[in-house]
């Protein structure tokens, strides 16, 4: 490459990056989608649109709303203060805390015409048993002293509407003091339900809500709050992670700057190490947005492992320049740098071939980021003048004596013994665990609050449910009613906490027809006697019976559109664009034991239109699948890479591969011995270990120079500071990444000298 070409390429790269800034900026400001759903990582065929729709619909109650239960000596005063503060808060779109805040519409208009077809279970049983006397007595009393809606001698002499409402929609609430209250274990709680204005994961929404609640609890010390809702969990998780990242981040930054200063003694040189990171990140962002049109947040998290590798090229380049001074030339550097890039990109690109769209995006992001950083290092860094410092050479020399102490201690034979030992430990003892619970960051008081509120209010997170489909709404209702006996039995025998069935509120039309028959029987048997006792003229009997001739059915559509049926809307998926027919869900509440689960799965096996879904378990499955896929493809890439590198390094190949492979094996063996189950996040950190390990092996093999060992040491130290420190984090995800990096990077660093030939002796770096 002539200097002229190099200049041109450098300019071209600058223009490309400028284009990236414009493109990424434009796409982000024009509503690019940031995806947070773990399920978005799954191949499309793995999850039907129905399940996605059901998850979104059922989850929104928990995600977009929150519930507060307040206990206080001065309940009205405390609740009013809290409600007023929350209503003013920009984080809260709507707050419901007074009886008047719940719009129930007009039940008489909605259910009145169909009431003769709506009989609650108690009344049905009484009529079927011919037990008319109690019904008649109650009807008579209500004629003289109506105690419900529209209890009229002609329209509803038996108070059917009121019985239906009381039988199917009774709530545990009381509305004294113009609050919504309930009593639980002797304590009286007021209930407030809030709808969020923004996303529960948005930092500003979280802190605004947190501040609002805190200011009120501070002013009312006698007030106790039970909290339920995604936002509280998200807040705690984010809070902890932020705090730790800033603590560790600051520590790491100071440490990193200190080390780099010791070697380079130049702020400018230190800055040049960061430029490739920024350029690589920018290039990856723009390229990913351009190709995928959206960005998954896990991709960005994953991108952090890229940072550690990307800084590698810059460190190698600058170490060589600092150490070699005038003798530095770009050309001899290129094979090592190119192989380093090639090996890492291959490891990532392998994953781009997997059938998982999310993983493809991650791999693409990492690979383009590495390429971007590499181009920046090669095209720009040599153009920045670098002061040759004696300190760099001195550091290289000091480190070299350390290198010599370890050099060649590991022979092929011992290495093989180590590999066999590690593999057998891993094979015997290594466990995996993909459960989401491992990742939870919520404090135990919050989890207790959540559990209490959910059990008191019968609220659920919508994570476990039955998905039921049918050709028509009518068929759906009939199928749901067929399921009811099973669900009832499970609840009765204690296998299941409870369930929410749409047909409890809107029976199938066949069922409604049966009920109408019962009502007719009731009228025939008792209406004359009832009128007689009440002193009403018998001429009116016909008028009352005329209402039973052909009353309308209560339709699912009418119910779901009404204010009263509003809370049932989440249960109905209706028609979809992609699938024929209709679908709805039956959320399961409370505990579900193994016997219950087995019974439900058995039912689902026998009915193709029924499936049991567990969102939490499914996410765990996704994470597990992701983990296994990454492991498989990286393993495969490793083998291919070994074969390719063997073309260049021949018998030395094992020395090149050993740091990366050994780092992985040692890390896994240590985790296995410690009994720590491995999850996706351990494995993402292993990618960092592999990337750095390969770079280290290649650079050592290519340069056999003291500056290479200096660069490997610096790059290990910086990654150890950036990631290894996270091992001490209390946030599970960060801890997993940190622990893996700590063990893996230390192993890589130690393995580099250990596997070099005993005879290797490098010339002193000229001063």
């Amino acid at each position, binding site marked *: 490459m002539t200097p002229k070409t190099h200049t041109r390429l450098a300019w071209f790269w600058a223009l490309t990056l400028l284009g990236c800034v414009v493109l990424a900026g434009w796409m982000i400001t024009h509503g690019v989608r940031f995806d947070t759903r773990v399920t978005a990582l799954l191949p499309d065929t793995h999850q039907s649109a129905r399940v996605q729709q059901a998850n979104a619909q059922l989850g929104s109650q928990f995600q977009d709303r929150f519930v507060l239960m307040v206990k206080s000596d001065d309940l*009205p005063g405390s609740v009013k203060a809290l409600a007023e503060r929350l209503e003013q808060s920009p984080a809260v779109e709507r707050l419901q805390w*007074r*009886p*008047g805040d*719940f*719009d*129930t519409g*007009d*039940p*008489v208009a909605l259910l009145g015409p169909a009431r003769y077809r709506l009989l609650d279970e108690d009344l049905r049983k009484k009529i079927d048993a011919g037990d008319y006397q109690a019904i008649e*007595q109650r009807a*008579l*009393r209500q*004629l*003289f*002293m*109506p*105690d*419900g*809606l529209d209890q*009229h*001698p*002609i329209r509803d002499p038996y108070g059917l509407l*009121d019985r239906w*409402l*009381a039988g*199917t*929609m*009774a*709530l545990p*609430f*009381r*509305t*004294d*003091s*113009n609050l*919504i209250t309930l009593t639980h274990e002797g304590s009286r709680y007021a209930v407030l339900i809030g709808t969020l204005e923004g996303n529960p994961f948005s930092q500003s929404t979280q802190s605004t809500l947190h501040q609002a609640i805190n200011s009120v609890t501070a002013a009312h010390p006698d007030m106790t709050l039970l909290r339920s809702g995604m936002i509280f969990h998200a807040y705690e998780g984010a809070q902890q992670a932020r705090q730790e990242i800033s603590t560790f981040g600051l520590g790491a930054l100071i440490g990193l700057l200190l080390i780099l200063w010791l070697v380079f003694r130049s702020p400018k040189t230190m800055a040049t190490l960061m430029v490739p990171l920024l350029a690589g990140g920018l290039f990856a962002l723009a390229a990913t947005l351009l190709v995928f049109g959206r960005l998954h947040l896990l991709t960005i998290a994953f991108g952090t492992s890229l940072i550690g590798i990307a800084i590698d090229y810059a460190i190698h380049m600058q170490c060589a320049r600092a150490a070699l001074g005038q003798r530095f030339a770009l050309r001899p550097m290129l094979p090592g740098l190119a192989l380093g890039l090639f090996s890492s990109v291959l490891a990532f690109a392998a994953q781009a071939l997997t059938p998982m769209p999310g993983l493809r995006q991650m791999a693409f992001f990492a690979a383009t980021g590495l390429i971007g950083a590499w181009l920046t290092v090669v095209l720009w860094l040599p153009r920045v003048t670098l002061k040759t410092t004696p300190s760099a050479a001195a550091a290289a020399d000091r480190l070299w004596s350390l290198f010599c102490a370890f050099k060649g201690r590991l022979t092929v034979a011992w290495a093989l013994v180590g590999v066999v030992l590690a593999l057998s430990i891993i094979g015997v003892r290594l466990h995996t665990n993909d459960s989401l619970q491992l990742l939870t960051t919520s404090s135990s008081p919050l989890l207790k609050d959540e559990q209490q509120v959910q059990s008191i209010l019968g609220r659920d997170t919508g994570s476990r449910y039955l998905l039921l489909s049918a050709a028509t709404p009518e068929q759906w209702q009939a199928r749901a009613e067929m399921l009811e006996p099973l669900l009832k039995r499970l609840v009765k025998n204690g296998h299941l906490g409870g369930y929410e069935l749409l047909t409890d509120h809107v029976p199938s039309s066949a069922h409604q027809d049966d009920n109408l028959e019962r009502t007719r029987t009731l009228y025939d048997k008792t209406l004359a006697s009832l009128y007689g*006792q*009440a*002193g*009403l*003229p018998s001429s*009116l009997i016909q008028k009352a019976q005329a209402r039973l001739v052909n009353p309308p059915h209560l339709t699912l559509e009418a119910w779901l559109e009404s204010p*009263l049926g509003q809370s049932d809307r989440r249960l109905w998926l209706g028609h979809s664009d992609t699938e024929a027919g209709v679908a709805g869900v039956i959320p399961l509440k409370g505990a579900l034991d193994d016997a219950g689960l087995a019974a439900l799965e058995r039912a689902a096996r026998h009915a193709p239109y029924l499936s049991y879904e567990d969102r939490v378990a499914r996410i765990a499955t996704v994470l597990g699948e992701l983990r296994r896929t990454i492991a498989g493809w990286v393993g495969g890439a490793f083998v291919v890479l070994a074969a390719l590198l063997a073309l260049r390094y021949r018998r030395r190949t094992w020395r090149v591969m050993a740091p990366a492979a050994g780092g992985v094996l040692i890390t896994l063996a240590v985790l296995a011995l410690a009994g720590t189950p491995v999850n996706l996040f351990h494995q993402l950190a292993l990618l960092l270990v592999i990337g750095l390990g390969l770079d280290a092996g290649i650079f050592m093999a290519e340069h056999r120079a003291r500056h290479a060992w200096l660069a490997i040491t610096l790059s290990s130290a910086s990654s150890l500071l950036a990631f290894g420190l996270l091992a001490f984090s209390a946030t599970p995800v960060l801890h997993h990444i940190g622990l893996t990096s700590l063990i893996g990077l230390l192993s890589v660093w130690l393995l580099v000298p250990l596997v070099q030939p005993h005879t290797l002796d490098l010339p002193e770096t000229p001063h």
Partner: protein
Amino acid sequence: MMSRITRLILICTTLALPINALAAELDLNTLTQTLSTADHVEGRFVQKRYLHDMETTLTSHGTYQFDRGEQVIWTLTDPVQETLTLDDDGMQRNGTAIKDSPAGVARLIMQLLNGDFAALESRFDIALTGSDADWQARLTPNSDAMRRYLKRITLTGGDTLSHLEMALSDGDTLSIDLTQTRP
């Protein structure tokens, strides 16, 4: 939404029962004060339900008992037997608990038993007229949900509450005449 008409009646009754001790200055504060000093009251009632579209009146009789802050017992004796009880534990019909109405019906009565006028005022516009010897209270619902069924409640009395009338939106009325026998 107000659906349990009975409860309204009970509420209004309890609201008015201690009014015999009402001071000359007729306002809600005095009423609240009076409520909190009231004791045990009982008597008989005649209840007439007028059905507008049938031009029929259904008449019933019974007795009432009121222990302030503790319990209200409303007993129909003729032509049908029924006892409604309201206390801290909620409302019972013939000893069996009645579930609270699904649509979020208030146990308004408790507010009154606790002298919680602020809460009652949040649902009704209350107008008091007359003197302590001859007064009238008009309660007009202030929410659309309640107005759908209930037009207004009128309470009249002198030393004691003597008459209660509920005008429903469909033209029906429920009127109750009370006669105090004790104390």
